[in-house]
């Protein structure tokens, strides 16, 4: 409520400022320089005549009135007025407005000159003399003095009116904004209370409020999806960790009742192996989290990516010999130093190579490649296995996203997720593509020139 009062006040203030600016402009345009001259002249003239009267008495004043100093200026008029308001001597009569009282000082009003019947607008100065008499000095003003005065009065009224209107507008705007904001804040409060399904009603108003409502709703949708994903993730994690823990437990159970030293050794070996694979899953989850928060960027170094690819191909080559699959290395494009996280990229490439062994080997060659393609570095693995259908590639990269066809093979389905997060760490992407036949899995990374 205080906010709407503030908005109303602000709107009123702004309206006032705008109107004052307009009025100031009009005033400046219409203000006549001659008015201040007129005022100065009649004031001076009154002072001079008062001096003459005081020093020379009525005769001196009479001659001063009859024989003006400047004969070129016929508009000079003066009068000596007695306390009752009657003109004792002078060449004009002041015509007071109804109810107007006398007082010393300048005013504008109507006068009638001697020997004339029409009234003129004039600036008049009254100066008090001893014994209740007055000296009045007048000059006929040009056209428009009254008009200007009317204008100024109406401008003043306009200012007051605009202030009121401004406040009224402000109140209206404040009420409108308040209503629209309240509908948003009510929904926000309900969501804060835990009801994530609430959405802000969208009015087809085409204004900023509609945009805001749509944006907030889109944000809520995204948060909702992330929360679902997270929930599913923890469910899957808990579920997937149950099986290695279960195997661990049954090995320990069996060890308790083992009868021979040999059997016992074998079971302990199995327990250690299962613990290691559990640890590996947990480390990979931590690694993904760390990589996704871009924590490794301070460990970027410059290195030759082709060397890294060749090194890993060489490392896995004997494994291929055992499995009956050959590992080849290919590079294309010129040699250059790439800036990135060498250890994590090695891990990413090693994951891709191991995937190729696990899912696609069966005798086909595995090609490790590093390509420089203009401003992109592409490093990855091509195999001759069954590949992944285009519509399942996204699922293959997601956390625990094992395809049904691979569920029986063990592993937690985190490998490609880690590779993808390593690609993101380098502002790149993990690309899965058809090798026709087989699968191409590669990191497509921008080469930076800084």
């Amino acid at each position: 409520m205080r906010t709407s009062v503030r908005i109303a006040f602000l709107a009123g203030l702004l309206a006032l400022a705008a109107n004052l600016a307009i009025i100031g402009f009009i005033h400046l345009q219409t203000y006549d320089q001659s008015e201040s001259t007129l005022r100065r002249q009649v004031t001076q003239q009154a002072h001079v005549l008062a001096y003459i009267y005081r020093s020379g008495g009525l005769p001196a004043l009479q001659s001063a009135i009859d024989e003006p100093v400047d004969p070129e200026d016929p508009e000079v008029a003066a009068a000596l007025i007695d306390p009752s308001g009657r003109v004792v001597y002078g060449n004009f009569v002041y015509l007071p407005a109804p109810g107007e009282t006398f007082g010393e000082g300048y005013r504008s009003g109507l006068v009638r000159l001697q020997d004339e019947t029409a009234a003129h607008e004039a600036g008049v100065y009254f100066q008090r003399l001893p014994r209740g008499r007055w000296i009045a000095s007048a000059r006929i003003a040009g056209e428009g003095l009254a008009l200007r005065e009317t204008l100024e009065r109406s401008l003043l009224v306009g200012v007051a009116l605009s202030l009121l209107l401004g406040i009224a507008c402000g109140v209206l705007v404040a009420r409108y904004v308040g209503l629209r904001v309240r509908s948003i804040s009510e929904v926000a409060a309900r969501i804060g209370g835990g009801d994530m399904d609430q959405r802000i009603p969208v009015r087809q108003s085409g204004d900023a409020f509609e945009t805001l409502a749509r944006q907030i709703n889109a944000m809520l949708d995204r948060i909702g999806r992330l929360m679902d994903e997270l929930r599913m993730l923890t469910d899957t994690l808990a579920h997937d960790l149950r099986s290695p823990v279960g195997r661990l437990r049954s090995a320990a159970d069996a060890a308790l009742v083992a009868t021979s030293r040999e059997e016992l050794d074998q079971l302990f070996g199995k327990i250690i192996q299962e613990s290691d694979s559990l640890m590996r899953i947990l480390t990979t989850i931590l690694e993904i989290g760390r990589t996704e928060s871009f924590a490794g960027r301070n460990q970027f170094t410059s290195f030759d990516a082709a060397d890294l690819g060749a090194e890993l191909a060489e490392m896995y080559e004997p494994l291929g010999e055992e499995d009956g699959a050959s590992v080849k290395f290919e590079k294309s494009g010129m040699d250059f130093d790439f800036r990135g996280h060498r250890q994590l990229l090695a891990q990413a490439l090693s994951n891709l190579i191991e995937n190729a062994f696990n899912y696609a080997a069966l005798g086909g060659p595995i090609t490790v490649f590093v390509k420089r393609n203009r401003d992109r570095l592409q490093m990855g693995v091509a195999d001759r296995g069954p590949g992944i259908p285009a519509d399942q590639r996204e699922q293959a990269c997601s956390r625990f996203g094992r395809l049904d066809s691979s569920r029986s093979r063990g592993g937690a389905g985190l490998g490609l997720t880690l590779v993808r997060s390593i690609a993101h760490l380098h502002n790149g992407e993990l690309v899965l593509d058809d090798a026709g036949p087989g699968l191409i899995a590669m990191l497509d990374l921008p080469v930076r020139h800084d």
Partner: protein
Amino acid sequence: MGRKILLVEDDRETAGYLVRGLTQEGHSVEHVTDGQEGLFRASGGTFDLIILDRMLPVLDGLAVLRALRAANIATPVLILSALATVGDRIDGLDGGSDDYLVKPFSFAELLARANALFRRSDARPSADPKITVADMEIDPLARVVRRGDKKIDLKPREYLLLEYFARNAGKVVTRTMLLEQVWDYHFDPGTNVIDVHVSRLRRKLEEGFDRPLLHTVRGAGYMLSG
């Protein structure tokens, strides 16, 4: 030969297990539980090895390490940590430690790494750089390997693997030590790729000879000995 080891570890259970194991191996172990005390003891420079937990009360492990290195104390430091990601390991090694071991670890792994660190600080440059293990002679300058009268042809990586084994002859070397020291990778491969390299090297070393050189140590790793 017993060594003097400083163990800085606040976890009672891990510390007890390490003190027992290392004492059984004939080493004398001094155990403190916080970083400040650890730094105080270590700054005498009288230990052969410092085993330093990374997360410690009062002063954390990396701060202790930095302070030691700044004071020119070159005692080998092995960091123990529950922080397991590749980035954490690199941070630890960049901080001036000689080795980094992730919890949970097997005692065999810790012992193998401690022995490698002892050996490294013992190594004196000698007039004859050749390494001899039983009837095998390795010339690190020429990168030539002979066994008896037979010259053994090795690929560059196989040679590096053998040299690492030879420099740690008679001691257990684990798979992760090989991956870190010979390949300089700090991740855990999901396959037995290291074993395949070792068995390939073994075939080359032992083909035509009766006496085995490269032994498998169950539950720990490998050992090169006569």
